[in-house]
């Protein structure tokens, strides 16, 4: 079973390589993410535009000295029925950083560290009871320590 999967994925990736060689896909599409995740990322971007303002806490630094490690926390533990928490970095080449589907005994709380290429607004999206809400915050990335 495992070998079959491996063969399948090998074939799929070689197919992608030929398409790339034909110049049909841009490099970022090929190397950045799988098609499924890309679709998800686009969907998150589209739905984030229409999402209302959330009543949860979103903690991210105003200035990140190192764009490779930007800690951020979403605390929606006061909200009921939280099913999904996502982090969306608008100016990244793959905007959707991570999407956490919570179920069962999980409390609406996620903390993680993400990479950021440059200064960008970061959106935290929380889906609770089927309604998506967001809180957005600008994070400045300063490389070399000189804020600008």
């Amino acid at each position: 079973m495992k070998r079959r999967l491996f063969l399948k994925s090998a074939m799929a990736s070689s197919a992608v390589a030929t398409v790339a060689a034909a110049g049909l896909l841009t490099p970022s599409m090929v190397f950045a993410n799988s098609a499924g995740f890309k679709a998800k990322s686009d969907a998150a971007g589209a739905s984030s535009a229409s999402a209302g303002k959330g009543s949860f806490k979103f903690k991210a630094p105003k200035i990140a000295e190192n764009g490779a490690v930007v800690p951020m926390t979403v605390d929606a533990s006061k909200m009921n029925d939280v099913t999904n928490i996502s982090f969306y970095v608008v100016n990244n080449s793959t905007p959707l950083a991570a999407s956490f589907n919570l179920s069962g005994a999980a409390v609406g709380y996620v903390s993680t560290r993400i990479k950021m290429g440059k200064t960008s607004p970061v959106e935290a999206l929380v889906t609770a009871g089927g309604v998506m809400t967001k809180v957005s915050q600008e994070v400045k990335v300063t490389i070399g320590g000189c804020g600008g």
Partner: protein
Amino acid sequence: MGKIKLKPKARKGVIGIKALIKHPMETGLRKKKGKIVPANYIVNILVSHNGNMVVDADIGSSVSKDPYFKFNVAGAKGDTIELKYKDNKGKTGSATAKSK
């Protein structure tokens, strides 16, 4: 590769799960000496609490190297927490820990 630190700690009926996975998290966009470093990042992590799934996360390439996650789950001391991950090359890893 594939070292996981998993530290669940119970407090007031909530288990705080801290997880640190050793992983390069290459985006596939970075170049080293003119050559593209092949993408290698975690795509999915699953966390279960006493056998019940609580977190199913889709991770993108823009999560930091050696990713750190913290989740909160309702539970008590002694509960079993299990974490599994899968990366884009099909490699998997898992860790199990009892809550303190």
